[in-house]
Each structure stands twice: as C-alpha cells, then as structure tokens.
C-alpha cells in the first residue's frame, strides 16, 4: 500500500511537470467557410513544427492554437495555412492555392458565403 502511495505521488509530479511545459495560446482569424476548410486549416496548422493543438471555429472563423513559441511563430503558421489556400489578415493565400480549393470552400465567392449565411 505504501508503495502505491509513493508511486501515485511520483505520477502526479510527472503530470504537473508535463502540464507546465512551455505553451502559449494564440488566436487569429482565418478565412474559410465549411467543415472541409476546418479540416484543411487545422491539418496545415498542426503539421507546422511547434504547434501542439489547433481548433478552427466555423462560426467565428477564429483559429485557436497552443504552440511552443520557442519553435514557431504566428507568421510561420499563417504562411503554412496560406499555402493550402486560406488567407489571414497578415498573409494572403497564393491565388493558385485558393483556386485549388473545393468549390464549397471558396470563401471569397460572395455566392458561396451568402449561401452559407442564409442556411445558418
């Protein structure tokens, strides 16, 4: 029983140590409209070195990230997201990348956005 208490104690120390590892919350807007956009944006964010967690909100268009600031910067993430076709205020997506998006993801097309808002 003593052993159990000891090991459990050690275990909790490990947990709090991991939990306190350097991580910063970042939030910024990313242009996009649908679930497919969400998947694409999050994948692009997550595959950026130093990004631990990514969640893009379809309604607010806000991307929440938890990153290790020593390894990455907001700019780097935004560049990677732009490369797959999604613009941010700071980094515009290249036109070829935007054109490659699925028809439903064309966030610059007023028709598409209007349809989306209407249905919502």
């Amino acid at each position, binding site marked *: 029983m003593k052993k159990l208490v000891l090991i459990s104690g050690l275990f909790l120390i490990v947990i709090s140590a991991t939990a306190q590892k350097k991580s910063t919350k970042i939030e910024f807007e990313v242009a996009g409209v649908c*679930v497919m956009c969400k998947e694409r944006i999050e994948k692009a964010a997550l595959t950026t070195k130093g990004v631990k967690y990514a969640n893009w909100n379809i*309604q607010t268009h806000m991307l929440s990230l938890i990153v290790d600031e020593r390894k990455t910067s907001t700019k780097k993430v935004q560049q990677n997201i732009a490369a797959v076709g999604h613009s941010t205020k700071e980094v515009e997506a290249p036109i070829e990348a935007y054109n490659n998006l699925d028809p439903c993801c064309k966030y610059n097309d007023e028709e598409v956005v209007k349809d989306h808002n209407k249905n919502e």
Partner: protein
Amino acid sequence: MKSKIIFIIFTFLPILLFAQDTLKGMITVQEDEKISILVGATVYWLNTNTGTSTNEKGRFTIAYKPEYKKLVISYIGYGTDTVDINSNRELRHLLSEGNELGEVNINTRKKTRFVSVLSVANVSKISSDELLKAACCNLSESFATNPSVDVSFSDAVTGTKQIQMLGLNSPYILITQENIPTVRGASQAYGLTFTPGTWVESIQITKGAGSVVNGYESIAGQINAELVKPLTDNKLFVNLYGSGNGRIEFNTHINQKLSDKWSTGLYIHGNNRSKKIDNNDDNFLDVPLAKQINLLNRWQYQNTEKGWVSFINFRYLNDEKQVGEINFDTKKDKLTTNAWGGKINTNRFDTSVKLGYVFPETPYQSFGLQTAYSNHKQDSYYGLRIYDIEHNSIYSSLLFNSIIGDTRSKFKTGLTFTYDGYKELINTTNYDRIENSIGGFFEYSFDNLDNFSLVAGIRADQHNKLGVFITPRLHLRYVPWGKSVFRASIGRGKRSANIFAENQQLFASNRKINVFDEGGKIYGLDPEIAWNYGVSFLQGFNLFEKEGDIIFDFYRTNFINQIVVDWETPQEILFYNLDGKSYANSFQTELNYNVLEYVDLRLSYKYYDVKTDYNSSSLSKPLIPKHRFFANVGIKTVEHNNSFWKFDVTYNWVGEQRFPSTITNPIEYQKSEYGKAINLLNAQVTKVFSSKFEIYFGGENITNTTQKNPIISADDPFGEYFDSTLIYAPIHGSSYYAGLRFKLK
C-alpha cells in the same frame, strides 16, 4: 477516463449540383477534437418515405423535389438535426452532438451495429437499438444478433449461457463495465446475467489483443458495456416482460436532475421464474427456477466550465437459482440422495467512483481516476457437492492523457492497482488465496490525419502470483484505397485461471475433480500466457445504389501456457499445465447490406480450429463447432406520427460439435463422437405506438431444436456416470414472450 469533448457547431454550404432531381451531401461529426465523416447516418425528408444513409465517405444522395423543405439527419449517439433546404445544392452538415444520449428516440432507421471505420482496433459497436432486437434480458443475451460473439450453453442443469470469441471461452475475454473489469474471478460463470439489458447503453466489442489500459488479462478480446447515465437516460422508464417458459422480468429507471451539475438515477431490476418445466421428461428441470433483485444507484457530476466530471455508483444484487430434479425440495433434500438438486445463491455489492479532469488551458490533457470495490459471495451446492466462494476485489487506476509534440501523437499513461481476496470451499477443501498486483502502462497513438494510424502500448506489472512481467500490444490501421480499412494487431495476455469458478458447470456431474499440483502458485498451477495475432480487412461497396460492406477477419491465439481442462476421461475432470501446443485459429467473414430501403441484411460465416495437446493426445476442443453460419434480417416499416413496426429474424446454423470421449461408459451412457449440426431461429416483432410506448413479442428457438437426453444417467444422478455437461443444443424447446416499454423524457 475517456474525455470526449464534442462541440455543437453546424454549418452547411450548398454548392451547385450536377443532377437536377437529387440532393447530395456529406455528414460529419466532431469527436475528440477531430472532424470525422459519419458512416451510416440516416438522412430523410420530413414526413415522407424518402430516406437514405451515408456511405463510407460520409456522403449521401437523396431524391429531391422542390416541395421537400426539411431534411432530417440523425445518428445513434448524436442528435437529430432538421435542416431547412431551399434548393438542391450540395449540403455539408456537422451533426450536433446528442447532449441527451437517451434521446435516441426510435424514430429513424439507424444502423444499429457497425464496425468502426475510424478506430485503430477492430471494434464493433452495439447500440441500444441493437440490444432491443434480443428482447431478453441481460448482458449474456445481448450478443444474439452479433456474429463476433458466440453464445453457447454450458450445461443441462444451470442452463447458463456462455459466450465465446475467436473460439475461446469468456475467461479469455476481458469483460468491463465502463472500463472497470467486472465479469471475472468468482463472477465468471454467472456474471453476465447480473447486468440487466435495459441498463446497457451500448457495448463495444474489440477483437484481438485490445488496449493495455484496462490490464493484462485480455487474450481473445475485450467487451465493454456502457451503462445508461442519469443525465441522459429517460426520466422514467418501465419495462415488463413475460415468457411462456415462466420467466417474468421487471425493469424501471428513475432519473432526476438535481442541479445543473448533479444528477442521480435509480435502476431497479427484478426477475422470477417459478414454473417447473420438464418437457423432455428426464425428471430434471429444463430451466432453473430463478429469482433476482438488482439495484443500482448512480450519481453523475458534470462541471464543463471547470473541466470536472464524476460518477459514483452503488449496486446490490441478490440472485437465487434452483436446479436439478423437479421434485427436489431445498428444505428436505439438500445434500441428501433423496433427490438430486442444487441451489446457487449469490449476493454481490459493488461500488465505484470515477473522476475525470480536462485541463481547461490545454484541452488535450486530462487525467482520470477510477476505483471500484466489490464483494461477491456465492453459496451453492450441486447434488452432494458444496461450492462456496467469496471474492473481495479492489481495482484502482489512475490515467493521464497528453500529447507528444502535437495532437497527432497522443499518449496515455497511468497506474493500476488490483487486489483479489478469495475464500473458496469445495466440499471440505479450502482454496483461500490473495492476489494483488501493481502496474504501470504507457500507450502511444499516432494518426497522420489521413490514412494511417497506430496504437502501441506496453505495461509492466508486479503480481504476487504471476510475478513481474511485461505486456506489449500493437494495433495498426491503414486505408489502402477508398471504402476500405486494413487492420492488424498483436498482443500478449496473462492471467491466473480460477479453475473452479470458471468451470462451475462441471459440478453438475459426478466427475472426480483432479488438479495436478505442479508446484505453481495458483491451485498448484502456473499462469496462463498467450499471444494473439490478427488481421482484418473491411471493404465498403455500393451495389444497385445500396450500401454494404464485407469484412474478413483472421485471428490466431497461441498459448504459451494454458490450464488444460481435460474431460476426455468420462468419470474425471483434470486440470493441468499445458505440455505441448494449444491454439485457436478463427476466420470470420461478414456481409452487411442494406438490401431495400427499410431492409438490412447481415450474413456471417465462421470457421474455428481450436486444438490442444491433452495428456492423452492432441484433440480439437470439445463442443466447439468448426463451422457456423449466421443470418439476420431487420425490417422497419414507414413511420407515421412516430408509430411503426419492426421485424427482426436471426438464424444460426451451428455445425457438428465433438463430444469428449464417453467410450468407457456403459453402452446406454455413451454419446456418439459428434453432436449433430443444429438450426436455431429467433424472431421478434416490435410495435412502436409513440415515442413513449411500445410493445414487443417474439419467439426463441422457433424450430424447437433440442438435444435429446441431454443428461447422461439422469435416471441415476448419484451414480458414477451422471453428467450434464455434454451439451451442444438448447435443452428447452421453443418459447414465446411478450413485453412492453414505457418511457418519459
């Protein structure tokens, strides 16, 4: 603790569509922070007969008319969304999470059982709807419509149903209730009958090695039952059931929300069978007399803001069974030779606490703590044999979830502590013992967010009887092309065999028990160790515009050591360590096809090759059929005002089964080498009147297949040849039942 955060967001974005008269779309869900496509979601136009379900890519195509305005999308375990449609532009819809899981009103056609496309392990899930297909009555009867689990009869006296997976008996399956191991130790033989069916919300069946998180014991697979939860279950639920074979059951659930954080539920089950039935005139009860009272009280705490969740459970059970000759009187004839009879009296108390916490700042990190205590006391006698067992058990585990780098790489790590104290008495011999273990585990999972994922786990345990040992497990998932999934798994399992508790059916015979003491630590025997390997392939298809899938599974279990239960000598039952080889090969193929709009078909063929080196020779395991065929058809009629019919038919063909040798018995007590192949047919009809009320009726074993003279030497039960264990077919012929369900949200 499993943390499952599902956000309620939805969006839909129509785009131009090519065809004029159809609406196309895609349905997704958010689970564990990840968007996944939803396979088999139901999509239909409100107040019409036009409906379909989503394919392997989560896509659907449905007939469109301008007058159709409301599209209903639903899926078991999620919400039911009604979407306004103004044109037939492509729809993308993120299905809202069913906050109220119990709200799964049976108002749509759902796929009630499916093999998960997303999970890495070979998991098939059974929803509460599927459970309703088998009207009765407890966990052991919940697998009747699922081909992954086989149900067999253990003996002609107690009538207990045994489950098997991959050709191996239930002791080799880790059976958990909300991830706490439950049906084990003293409750191995009857434990599945101690969980009423209405308490079960869903069942997950994992074939093969399974996860290291729940321990080292699983060898053939894991079965987890999730119970109904106070927050999401019906406010009031009443179920009554009566069967022609004299069985009556009563279930009621009462759930109450106490505050925005606390809810509680009280679940009461009672069953009774007092009618004496002996249709085969062997002077023995065909089914035991039985009584059970089962009470469960659950408390649920949920604080989503702070990230805390908790469950506290209390359960009390009393179960009594009377078996044997019909004129056996428990008062006068107990332990006498007046008449052969027995009584199995079980009292069980369980309590468990679960606590889970998700870090609000880092939602990918969480920890869980679960602790369970149970006291299981069985007092019983079978003829002149006394068997008493008391099992005190503590199970505790601490679990921490986090990521390595980013959320594509996750890990779970933690500690497990177990204590099992047994007091076991057979006639005058005591087998008291204490087992305890402490162990740590680490499980890593990786998902490339595309076509490949893996789960690799390892645990190290120190056990006072099993020693210090390592348990590795590995699962892989790969999507080679569209609509397909390839899986592979390998893992090791180790356990101490509770030879008497697990083989209690042998007490209903006059076989002499003989345990070969080989200096081991458990009954003088060594621990059981086995490796399990498996591959599985699923291919979805679209035939005549209807969805279907076909699955091929192959698994092999290889025992390093096994406690061989040898009943090849008619008057003896021997337990000894394996000397040589023992393996179980299982091949299964399964076809699921949505034949017509409202008709689902499931076909399965299974082949088992289970062989053990006995002391005498190498033999295939007795009473395990080599071939099995399974068919299930489900039909649901069109709905009008929540009212409809459901029809369900299950057919089983079970190939011939080898009897243990009876060659040295007198000729009248001998069995042939093999028991005949049998056909079994069950059917059920449900009429749903409204979302509140439904009735059902059905028949079990409609073809009236029974085994002639199931008990050897039934006329002389105290003679040396008496044996009720050589059973390959039902004892009781056809029986019909009816029941009702009433629920209030």
